């Protein structure tokens, strides 16, 4: 209908949509340009809830499974009670390690494994972390 104008707004629904999107964005931007920040905050909350549900089980299961394994080993090898005792303590340690890793990983966005960087125990080993970002 209109001649010469760049993309015809009536004939081209995409252009119309683009315009509407631009307008909506401008409106939202005017109300407070915290779009990306909001999104980040939401992501944190979601991750926090996920993490909370996660570590609750982590410790208990580690201890229970390890002790059960020790008990089974004792029955099998006839070494009662040493397997149970040793594996109970190993289970506690493993459980604490899992919880610590889950917690230490929060601020790393990707992290779960190890927070070696600041302590600087073996920076060369973790060069991979550096070139990641």
């Amino acid at each position: 209908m209109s001649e010469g104008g760049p993309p015809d707004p009536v004939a081209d629904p995409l252009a119309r949509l683009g315009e509407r999107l631009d307008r909506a964005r401008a409106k939202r931007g005017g109300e407070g340009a915290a779009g990306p920040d909001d999104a980040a905050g939401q992501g944190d909350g979601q991750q926090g809830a996920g993490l909370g549900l996660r570590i609750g089980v982590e410790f208990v299961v580690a201890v229970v499974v390890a002790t059960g394994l020790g008990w089974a080993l004792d029955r099998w090898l006839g070494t009662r009670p040493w397997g149970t005792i040793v594996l109970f303590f190993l289970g506690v340690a493993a459980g604490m390690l899992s919880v610590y890793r889950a917690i230490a990983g929060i601020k790393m966005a990707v992290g779960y494994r190890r927070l070696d960087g600041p302590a600087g125990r073996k920076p060369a080993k973790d060069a991979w972390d550096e070139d990641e970002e």
Partner: protein
Amino acid sequence: MAIEIHPLEQFTVERLIPLHIGKLDISYTNSALLMTLAVGLITALTVFGTRKAALVPGRWQSVAEMSYEFVADMIDTNAGHGAREFLPFVFTLFMFILFSNLLGLVPYSFTVTSHIIVTFALAAVVFVGVTIIGFVRHGAHFLRLFVPAGVPAVLLVLLVPIELLSYFIRPFTLSIRLFANMLAGHTMLAIFGGFAASVGFFAIIPLGVDVLLVGLELLVAALQAYVFAILTCLYLRDALHLH
């Protein structure tokens, strides 16, 4: 007023179509029915949702694309680079758990994920798969995962068993977390439902609690699927990017 309450009755597996091969019982159960339903719905969503593939997506296409992008994003941020090839697996896992959890909330249906054998099977697939991937990618070098860097040799005697243990505990934590959450949530719903049935006029109170609990359970259903998928990503990351 003796109304019997059986909050655990909802978890009974019933044979809908009895099938036996020799001594093997492969009956089609209500659990299998709900799994079929979940798989069918996911397939329907992804196939019909993306069939038109319009540039401006409709409702169903939006849902399909959003779930795809959600999982793709999760893999990129949590599993590191080079993990995109595992997207189909993680996506399938996430959608199956999510749909099983949500379908379980429909009254008179059955929650597949409230049975530990189901969640443990899923976790075992993840665990075995990740271990195989680790060995295929790194060979025997994969065992370095259990040897923390920069630790004196004396401590290694203690630390390696701990690392090994925390590795082998993964499938258990993964499966018990999902199973326990679903079991506890649905039992609680049934208990408050039972209260409502037995207290007559004041039923409004436990009923209100139940309404709130359903909301909570919706959150738990989505969150547990998310946690399961994100942990799969983190395990994949360990196997792919060895330190």
